[in-house]
């Protein structure tokens, strides 16, 4: 039964998408009921599958799944199907929770239940509505999003894409889900398409991820041409992997290496790794639930999920302890570099969401790096915990922004940027629930020891990197982790501690329950989900709870990886960087009142190492020049237009010739008019016969009858 329930997991969001788009888009309440109901159904199915999977012994060897024949390819069939193995079970678990939480959160975020805005137009964020209370006072209150139903339709489709991707048992449907998410990210980042920045961000996200997707498609094509199948189960057969690993391809890499590299470029795009990281910070232009959706629950997780999924291929021919092969080396390098690189940028950002965006890039770099050094389970573990606490942080930041906007409404001061952390401060009193949950999320991100989930997953990465001797990666990641704790504490300090720095922050207020409830739920997971993966050798705590996650997810691989030997060095490092970072962050920013006092507002970091400008100079400008000068002016206007014009002139001449010399005299006058005239003349003479008088006809027919009878009798009958 579980084999078939899986098919149904992606279905409700899709149905919800079509229902809302086609039928209910006028009614906001029905629309969000449908969307949340669909997300709830998928959540229910996911939990059912997950719980069933928990009950199966050695689940990695007895996965759920079914497949159908889809496309005949010669004598065989191209099969598509669904599969839930331990890895996808873990992923589907966090996807279901975060998606449901984000859906519910969106109801509050888009001000459901508030009046329609005074000047709101579709395509721009709502500006607020003026109401008059019973005492006659005028208040400005938040107004409902004009494209409310459309938003729920899009995120439903987004959820459909993610579920499809997770339950796929082959690269093709995975890619389909992948691309649907690409489309949805475009639609949702550009949800407020009235803002030029949102438009540009949407295009940028779409174009940047496209680069990765093209390479990924190449990888898929390569793998299909090599193996004749896209099904994971076929590809990951030991014999097949062996063959892939031993077949040399280009650049001195094996086929497996090339394929792994190509697919990894897809991940680089999707999960915003250097050098394709530039779209993700800009994607903050979308509504905050979308940011949470993209950066926590679905899109970037999908990239990491895919590369984890393809780990057997990437690591084909490699075993623990061996030096990394080229592909893994590249992956480890990019992951570690991105982790550090993004963390440094995050330190200098003032926008509350941008800090989180760079932190996401950085954390994804952690996972990629972990995978690159072969720490399969650690990468998956960090993926899960990160999804929870990052979703929590984004939703929390959305709540903060919402609170700030509320303050703006109250004061009527619209010059204050509600996302700038230097305009905040002291919000812990105004927004206690948001503060506590945000604090939990931030500590989890920083890896606050013992309590939070982030500590355990990050610690595992450190342990793996140290235990397997990848010291460069270990050190880089440690620095990155320190920076992470630092900028997290900077953010929390600037936002919640101290005194309100603006009047707006003074009047900020706590959000509604639809927004805080998901925060609380996610906070629980941000704390609790780390405890399923405590290493067994860990002092004091180890062994109280079994290292369930390691065994469960590890069983996905043909050869269950051994837990790394316990060592104090990474643990102490982890403790130091986390606590140290937090402490430094608090110390440095508890007195800071304005950006001027911030010592870290270095232009290089502030401007993200000038990557946008670099890309602009390297790619956008030349492309613009090329299309303007070469394609338009030379190719199009001169060459192609010239050819076309001469063809047209020739045709004109030819047409004139035919018309004047052949068509007019011969066909028109002789054949056309001549036939007509002949017919007309004969008709006008013959029409007298048709008198319309019945008796003429009768007389004529009887007369002919008589004549023919006489003829017959005398000519034939008489013989």
């Amino acid at each position: 039964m579980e084999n078939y329930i899986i098919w149904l997991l992606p279905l409700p969001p899709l149905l919800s998408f079509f229902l809302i788009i086609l039928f209910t888009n006028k009614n906001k309440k029905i629309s969000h009921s449908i969307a949340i109901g669909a997300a709830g159904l998928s959540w229910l199915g996911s939990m059912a599958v997950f719980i069933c999977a928990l009950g199966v012994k050695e689940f990695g060897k007895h996965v759920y799944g079914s497949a159908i024949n889809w496309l005949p390819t010669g004598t065989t069939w191209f099969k598509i199907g669904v599969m839930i193995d331990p890895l996808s079970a873990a992923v589907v678990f966090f996807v279901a929770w975060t998606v449901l939480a984000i859906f519910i959160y969106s109801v509050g975020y888009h001000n459901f239940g508030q009046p329609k805005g005074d000047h709101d137009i579709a395509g721009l964020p709502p500006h607020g509505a003026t109401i008059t209370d019973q005492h006659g006072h005028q208040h400005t209150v938040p107004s409902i999003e004009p494209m409310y139903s459309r938003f729920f339709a899009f995120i439903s489709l987004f959820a459909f894409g993610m579920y499809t991707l997770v339950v796929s048992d082959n690269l093709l449907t995975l890619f389909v889900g992948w691309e649907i998410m690409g489309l949805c990210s475009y639609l949702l980042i550009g949800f407020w398409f009235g803002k030029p920045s949102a438009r540009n961000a949407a295009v940028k996200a779409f174009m940047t991820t496209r680069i990765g997707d093209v390479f990924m498609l190449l990888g898929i094509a390569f793998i299909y041409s090599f193996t004749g199948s896209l099904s994971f189960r076929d590809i990951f057969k030991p014999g097949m992997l062996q063959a892939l690993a031993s077949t040399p391809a280009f650049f001195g890499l094996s086929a497996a290496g090339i394929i792994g590299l190509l697919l990894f470029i897809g991940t680089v795009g999707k999960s915003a790794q250097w050098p394709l990281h530039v779209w993700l910070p800009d994607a903050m232009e979308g509504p905050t639930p979308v940011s949470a959706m993209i950066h926590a629950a679905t899109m970037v997780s999908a990239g990491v999920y895919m590369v984890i999924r393809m780990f057997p291929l990437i690591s084909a021919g490699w075993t623990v302890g061996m030096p990394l092969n080229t592909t893994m080396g590249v992956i480890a390098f990019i992951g570690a570099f991105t982790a550090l690189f993004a963390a440094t940028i995050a330190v200098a950002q003032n926008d509350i969401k941008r800090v989180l965006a760079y932190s996401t890039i950085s954390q994804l770099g952690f996972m990629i790096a972990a995978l690159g050094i072969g720490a399969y389970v650690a990468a998956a573990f960090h993926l899960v915990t990160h999804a929870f606490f990052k979703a929590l942080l984004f939703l929390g930041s959305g709540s903060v922004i919402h609170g700030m906007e509320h303050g703006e409404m109250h004061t009527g001061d619209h010059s204050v940027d509600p996302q700038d952390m230097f305009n905040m401060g002291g919000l812990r009193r105004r927004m206690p629930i948001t503060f506590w949950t945000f604090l939990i999320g931030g500590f989890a991100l920083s890896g606050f020891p013992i309590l939070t989930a982030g500590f355990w997953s990050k610690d595992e990465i450190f342990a793996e990197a140290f235990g397997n001797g990848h010291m460069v990666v270990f050190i880089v990641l440690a620095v990155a982790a320190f920076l992470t704790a630092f900028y997290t504490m900077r953010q929390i300090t600037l936002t919640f501690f101290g005194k309100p720095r603006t009047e707006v922050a003074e009047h900020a207020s706590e959000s509604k329950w639809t927004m805080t409830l998901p925060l609380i739920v996610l906070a629980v997971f941000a704390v609790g989900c780390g405890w399923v993966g405590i290493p067994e050798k860990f002092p004091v705590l180890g062994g109280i709870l079994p290292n369930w996650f390691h065994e469960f997810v590890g069983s996905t691989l043909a050869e269950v990886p051994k837990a790394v030997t316990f060592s104090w060095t990474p643990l102490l490092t982890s403790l130091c960087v986390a606590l140290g970072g937090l402490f430094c962050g608090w110390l440095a920013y508890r007195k800071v009142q304005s950006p001027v006092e911030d010592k870290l507002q270095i232009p290089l970091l502030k401007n993200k190492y000038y990557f946008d400008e670099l890309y602009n100079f390297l790619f956008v400008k030349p492309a613009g020049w090329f299309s303007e000068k070469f394609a338009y002016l030379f190719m199009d206007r001169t060459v192609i237009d010239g050819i076309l014009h001469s063809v047209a002139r020739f045709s004109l001449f030819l047409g004139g010739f035919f018309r004047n010399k052949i068509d007019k005299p011969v066909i028109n006058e002789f054949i056309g008019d001549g036939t007509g005239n002949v017919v007309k003349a004969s008709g006008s003479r013959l029409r007298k016969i048709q008198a319309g008088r019945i008796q003429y006809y009768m007389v004529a027919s009887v007369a002919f009858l008589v004549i023919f009878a006489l003829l017959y009798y005398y000519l034939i009958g008489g013989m």
Partner: protein
Amino acid sequence: MTVEQIIFIITGLFTLGSAFMVVTTQKLIQAALWLVSALFGVTILYAILQADFLAVVQVVVYIGAIAVLFIFAVMLTRKELRDQGSQTRSNWWIAALLGALVLAGLVFLIIGEPAFNRMAQAIPAGVDTLRNLGTALVSPDAYVMPFEVASVLLLSALVGAVYIASRKGEEK
């Protein structure tokens, strides 16, 4: 010349004379009534031919229904009851010529065929022609198909006549 022949000749002359009046009389109502008289002559011919059923049906259908319908139609299609002008076309002589030609040809053919000089045999005793006719009309071996088709034809004629003659749709 036997009595039967005399009766036949009288009936025939009566029929043909009435028919001639039908096509020549100037008053249409009288033409219709002459038609009744001609049809009555035909009825007598049926009786002489011992086709009792047809004789009676001739009266019921032709005189009782068709002739009455004609009279109705004549009355309904004029503004005053009197007829005006000639009822005959100017080139009636062509029609007369054609009719005479056809008649001459037919008579020539009939007289030239010796088989047509036969006399009727007495209907054998025990042959109930009425019962035979009834059986033939509804027997699947015989004429049930034409009979049913004819009844469908009558139904469609009924519907069609009602539709055509109804005033609906003409009211402005």
